[in-house]
């Protein structure tokens, strides 16, 4: 049963509901959850960096092996060596946070720069961008990373730099497309006729007013990807090494115990991965839908 109800009284032809009332509740919920996750990550990163942890993540406590959450003051229990899981999860964020930012910074900055150039240059840059896009897409991400690791060393920053570079053509083509679309709208011409210097036009009008949503969404999805890559790598043994915790190597280390029926040491970090990546995905998708006004139209 669908109910439709008209608001009584005058309805202005020109006014519209503000975007937060227009947006679907699901999208708002997604964004709220996503922001919650982002806050949690930031706070945890800070706690980890400042070493403000409930327990020492390396401290072994033989009496309390594989304890369930809540026992003996350990909020999330302990792992197979009696180490506090919550502290290890918090420290685990160090493994991907800054490297992820590096990847995002590279792909967004280089991508935007190239995209702006391509957008201004017009059609001739298109096949080039498309070629590089296809080129980058031809590599399975992990295989390329393994190649880089074999050639250099298993350093997460090298890896994330490469991940950042692989994101450049995608961002560039999005930005170039947006610019081409905006150019048709003439206000860029108007602005330059009014005497605004080119760099102001680009920075202020194009990027800030029109592209920022694209960039924000790109950043959230990029961080989600970075987490996936870092955890996969440390699971495979190429990232942070034991006993330093990373969510990936925690799952790997707990694997044997999992198969013996002691699920928690592997499952806790897996759930952390799940809920964090989920948060970034939902944030990106929710923002996209709200700002593009797709849903409920």
């Amino acid at each position, binding site marked *: 049963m669908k109910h439709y109800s008209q608001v009584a009284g005058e309805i202005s032809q020109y006014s519209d509901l503000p975007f937060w009332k227009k947006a679907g509740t699901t999208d708002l919920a997604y964004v709220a959850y996503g922001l919650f996750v982002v806050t949690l990550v930031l706070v945890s990163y800070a706690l980890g960096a400042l070493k403000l942890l409930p327990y020492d993540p390396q401290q072994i406590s033989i009496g309390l092996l594989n304890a369930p959450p809540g026992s003996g003051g350990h909020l999330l229990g302990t792992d197979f060596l009696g180490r506090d899981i919550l502290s290890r999860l918090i420290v685990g964020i160090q493994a991907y946070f800054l490297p992820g930012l590096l990847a995002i910074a590279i792909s967004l900055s280089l991508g935007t720069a190239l995209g702006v150039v391509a957008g201004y240059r017009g059609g001739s840059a298109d096949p080039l961008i498309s070629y590089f896009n296809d080129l980058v897409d031809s590599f*399975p991400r992990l295989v390329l990373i393994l190649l880089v690791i074999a050639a250099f060393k298993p350093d997460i920053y090298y890896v994330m730099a490469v991940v950042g570079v692989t994101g450049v053509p995608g961002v560039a083509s999005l930005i170039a497309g947006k610019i081409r679309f905006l150019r048709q709208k003439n206000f860029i011409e108007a602005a330059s006729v009014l005497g605004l210097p080119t760099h102001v036009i680009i920075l202020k009008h194009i990027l800030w007013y029109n592209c920022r949503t694209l960039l924000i969404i790109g950043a959230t999805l990029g961080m989600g990807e970075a987490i996936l890559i870092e955890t996969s790598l440390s699971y495979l043994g*190429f990232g942070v090494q034991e006993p330093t915790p990373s969510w990936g190597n925690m799952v790997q280390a707990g694997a044997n115990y999992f198969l013996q029926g002691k699920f928690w040491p*592997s499952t806790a970090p897996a759930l952390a991965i799940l809920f964090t990546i989920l948060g970034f995905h939902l944030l990106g998708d929710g923002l996209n839908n709200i700002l593009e006004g797709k849903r409920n139209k």
Partner: protein
Amino acid sequence: MRPAAIRPIALALSREIALTALLLLGVSFVVFLILYLSPGDPFSVLLEGQTVGDASRAGIREALGAPRAWYAQYLSWLGNMLKGNFGTSIRTGLPVFGEIVRVGLNTLTLTLGSLLITLCIAVPIALHAAVRGDTALSWPLTMLAYVVSALPVFWLGYLVIYVFIHRFGLFPLISGSSAAQEHAWLYFMVPIAVLGIGNGTVSEVIRYLRDEMSRVMAEDYIRTARAKGGSVWRHAFKEGLLIPVTEIIASKIPFILGGAVIVEQVFNWPGMGRMAWQAAQDRDFPVIMGIAMVAAAFVRLGSLLQSLVYAAVNPRGPQE
């Protein structure tokens, strides 16, 4: 196929093949570049490996002389590769090409099988959403898809293994003897199912297929089909399902291959992914370079097949 339709397809194909060749060239250059920038001199080792016979090998080193120009190195490496000579593995001494072929088939089955599984999950959900719109089931399904896509596939693998050990008393790891056992087919299904579900693309695939089908359902010609009492499904199928499915498959192959690296670890599946992992550990660059090239070739092949399907279905000939 009607004769009139063949010429534009041939044209489309040759253009796509040329593009693929150009891209693979670019791939080889990127691979070469990475190795070139790597510390040490991997290339002499690599090129030595590509030469046959020990006796001549020492001679080659001298004949090659001191540092060669990078383009000469690149060209001779590329030339060898095109002849099927991928060099020899630093670790095992075996020819890389042969090794990759041996395990490549396993990865191929894993990849294709899991693509099928992903489609089996995504297509019904996407079609239901496109045709029925919002139902009570829509949101739970969407949420489930999101959760499944954010799940780390390695953990999912352990979960499934655990269930298999305790429920079925089986240990789904591939080993030499497993093929002979009575439940052999189960051993193959499990990693395929895990990769098919956990590769992280399910959510996007559902969304893409649903959006494409919805877009086609809103087209004028579907309205005409409805108005004349015709079968909407028959009209919407080509543009709404067939083409989008081939497009999304082609674009997700790289992700599935990446996931295969992990799944092969979890299940000890003897494929290219596990070989790549080993190669990265040992810094066995001939192997990892060969695998990178083969993986990229596989991706591009998928893309080529997709273009073929598009050209065959589209009477207009190739148009973006």
